Structure formats: C-alpha cells, structure tokens
C-alpha cells in the first residue's frame, strides 16, 4: 500500500467504502459493529439526513458515539422517536419502509446467504454462535441488503453450515421462487474489495479492489473461486475527512465505553 499517505487500515477502508454506498434519503436498519460505524460515518459526512434505525426501537437516531449494544441509551436519546420492539418489526421492517438492511456475517457464501447461527450441525454444533436476531426478516423485508465483513477463508465459504438469513439462495431467481419480492444482497463490502451480484446468476463478483489490494489477495482470503468483473475499478482511498470522521467517532466511542469501566475500577 504505497499510495496510502493517511495510513488507513483495511478495516477503515471497508467501513468508509460502505459509508459511501449510503444515500441521504436512505432508511437503514443497522446492525452493530462495522455496519453501525459505516452508517454513522455516512451521516457525519455526505448523508446528514439519512435515517438510521436500530432494532431496539430507535428511529432516526444520531449517536455521538457508536453503541456497544443495539440498545445503548445514546441511541434513544438522539432518536426522532423510540418505539416498542413489536412495532419495530411489524410497522417499520415488515411494513417495507427500510431501504437498506445492513448485515454482518460469520459465514457467507457467494450468493450472499449468511450464517451466524452454528458452525457444524444445528443439533450438535461445533460452535454455537449467537443466532440470527433480526437478520432472517431484515434479509427479506428490506428493499436491499448491504453486507460488510473482513475476508477470511473461514468466513467466505463454498457452503454455509446454516441459512440464518437468505440471500440469493442457489442464485438466479431463487428469491422470487420463494415469494420474496425484495432485492436481497446487492452489495458486499469487505476489507479488500467491493462486490456486487451478477445480474443473472446473482453470484457476488468483485467490481472494485481497494487501493493496493491484488486479485490474488482477494482469492486467497475467500473460500470459493472468485469472479472478477471485466472492468475492475479501484476503490478511491479514504479522504482525509472520511478518515478523520471515522477515527474521531471511534475515539469518542472508545473513551465512552472505557469510561464506565475505569470509573468502576476507581
């Protein structure tokens, strides 16, 4: 990464690339972690009016620090309104009001199907993961799904162990065949590249490499044979503003979250 004078990390590139995909009029259902950081960077840079919704019931929230949990007080204090959880899932998600559902993944396959439930057999798991939470219905009720994750061969696999949430299934028109009328995963942003589904097969295809990343690096950290777009872009490096915004946000977050612990120890 020679042309990286700002010294951004792959994770920072991932978060910032994801933030750029969000528009000012989007209504995002936000998961914790990288999605939350990306959404808030978007809000603090090019999309000040973006609506961020967390499944704890907070609508139109604008946290000054990133929440550790999906239901931190900061989310409620800065929200336009806070509703009960059944209403969140009935009126706001199922009601078709979410333009972008933003998910992370423990395992993902090339069709954007996600597993966050178990490694191994469901009834005799090798590793029991937390499970889907809101994801099964976020994946089908949001108009589009954006996914962010750091690439590893353990995470990006030929065959996921469990369909926590449905992406494009076996590809093609599988969603439609199940009666799902939303678009599903339309964007995958990793620490190395930007991926979009092939219009026909729906297989995720690399459309842009982050600065300094090679095709080989992408392939080596992915468990399936990677398809690259014919016209492969290079992701613009983070701007100074983007990087500062993200780092400031994370610094405020770190201070806030450690603060409670320190005070306790004191």
């Amino acid at each position, binding site marked *: 990464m020679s042309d990286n004078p700002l010294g951004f990390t792959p994770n920072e590139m991932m978060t910032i690339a994801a933030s750029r995909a969000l528009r000012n009029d989007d209504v995002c259902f936000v998961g*914790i*972690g990288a999605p939350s950081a990306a959404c808030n960077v978007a809000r603090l840079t090019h999309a000040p009016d973006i609506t961020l919704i967390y499944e*704890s*019931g*907070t609508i139109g929230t604008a946290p000054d620090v990133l929440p*550790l*949990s*999906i*239901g*931190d*007080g900061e989310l*409620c204090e800065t929200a336009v309104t*806070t*509703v*009960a*959880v*059944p209403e*969140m*899932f*009935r009126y706001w*998600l*199922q009601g078709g009001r979410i333009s972008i559902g933003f998910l992370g993944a423990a395992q993902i396959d090339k069709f954007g199907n996600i597993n966050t*439930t178990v490694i191994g057999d*469901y*009834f005799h*798991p*090798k*590793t*029991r*993961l*937390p*499970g*889907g*939470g*809101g*994801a*099964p*219905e976020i*994946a*089908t*009720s949001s108009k589009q799904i954006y996914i962010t994750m750091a690439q590893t061969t353990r995470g990006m696999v030929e065959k996921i162990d469990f*369909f*926590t*949430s*449905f992406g494009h*299934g076996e590809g093609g028109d*599988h*969603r439609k065949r*199940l*009666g*799902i009328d939303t678009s599903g995963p339309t964007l995958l942003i990793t620490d190395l590249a930007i991926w979009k589904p092939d219009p026909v097969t729906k297989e995720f295809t690399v459309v842009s490499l982050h600065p300094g990343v090679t095709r080989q690096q992408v392939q080596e950290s992915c468990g399936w044979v990677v398809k690259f777009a014919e016209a492969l872009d290079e992701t613009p490096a983070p701007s100074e503003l983007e990087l500062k915004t993200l780092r400031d946000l994370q610094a405020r977050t770190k201070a*806030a*979250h*450690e603060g*409670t*612990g*320190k*005070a*306790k120890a*004191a």
Partner: protein
Amino acid sequence: MVKFLPLKQAVAENLNDDDTVAFEGFTHLIPTAAAHEAIRQGFRDLTLVRMTPDLIYDQMIGMGMAKKIVFSYVGNPGVGLLRRARDAIENGFPRSIEIEEHSHAGMANAYEAGAAGLPCAVFRGYRGAGLAAVNPNIKSVTCPFTGEVLAAVPSIRPDVTFIHAQKADRQGNVLVEGIIGIQKEAVLAAKRAVVTVEEVVDNFDDLHPNLTVLPRWTIAAISVVPGGSHPSYAHGYYARDNAAYLEWDQIAADREKFQAWMQANVIEKSAGDFAARVEHLRKAA
C-alpha cells in the same frame, strides 16, 4: 391486585420450579436483580424465554437452572458469544438444555400475540431461513384473501414475567420509558408479572398521557431495587456498564472462574447490593 414486596418475597411468591419464565429487557432495563434473586433461591427446570438471553440467562444456564431456552439471539450484545450457554448447548454442561430458536420478529410477534390473548402470531417471516426447518413451532397460515403464505408461531404466555422499570406510583402503576423493548407485551402476556423499580413516586399526575404505563392491576408484585438493572441501564438513572459486559466474556469463559464469580457476586449478595454498583454510572445517565 399489586403488592409492594421485598424482592426475595416477590420472587418466592411468583416463581416456581418448572415454570416458563421471561426476564425481559431489550439491552435496556434488564431485570438483573430479579434474576440473581431467582438464582439464590435455586429454582430448577425452568423454561427461560427471552429475545436476547444475555448475561442473566448465561448465569442461570451456568447454574443449571434451565431445562429449555426460547430465544432469538443468544449473544453478549456487542461483545460476542455467551460462553455458559455455549457450554450447555455444545457439551451438555452443567446439564443439557433444550433450545427453541426464533428470529427477533418471530419472538416479538409471539409476545404481541400473547399480550393480545391469541393462540398464535401471524407475520411475514422465516422465508428461506434455516430456522423454519429445525423449529417445529414455526408453521404457516394462508391469507384467505390473497393466498399469500405467512409464518405462524405459537404465542408466548409465560407463567411469570420479570421486568425492571424506572418507577412505580404509590398505587402500583408502573412507568417504563426509553427503549421500551418488549416489556409491556411480556407483562401482559404473562399469567403473573413482577416488576423491580428504581423508585416509587407519589403519583403519575404529571406524566404525558401516551407513555408506557402498566396499570396496577396488570402486576402481581413490585419491588424497589435501585440499580436493579446493572450492568444494563435505566434511562434517566444510570448508564450501561459496558465494561462489565466486556469483563463477562472472560468470567464466563472458564467454569471455575464462573462459579467463583457467581458465589461472590450473586450467592453471597442480595438485592440491596445493586445500588452501590451503579453509583459511578449515575453521572453518565
């Protein structure tokens, strides 16, 4: 009609071995003090229901109190896995437990249906999701007007629900505010409800009419336990102890360490110890 009781008595009068019980709270207002009291009283063979069974269910599972859990996200929110729950599911330690797993939408709708007195909830869910294949309590109904196939799950009707709330008035009406989660539904869906509160105020005369207030006749018992939600938080009273959630990951990783922590911090403690735990978090709220 509602009774104001010490927490020890409220738990003893309302929880029984073999009960289906929900200790609800969606990150906010988790009824930790009530869960710890239940642990101290040593109930067995509970069916634990909760959307997000975090630390308190990790603790109850680790203490061998649960025969079954019904849930939609068995994680330490923002941190990672629940290691005592994993040990039970993966290794049957300290006992094997049955699991019934839903999505958040499924659980939220099931509580709603419970509060609404219905036998099942109907919603658009689980399409293409693996849970529908492993959970026999996920079925379907067909819309008689459009033919659309919708998901159906049984309503949740706990024997008893525990929640934590900001305040009660002297009559026993209870106010929940901030991230209200699923608490109202969990109370109304239950046969009995026990509420721990931060404080009791004379009356609610100055409250806005549309807040989430549970009338006194929907509640069996109220216990005043300041700080009773720690390490979760009470909007307007004290902040979330994020550090404690991070620490839990270490404590629960080891069976002996877990036991020692439970002995020192739960078994040998009482509801009265919670107030001190949130003292340093009050400023931040």
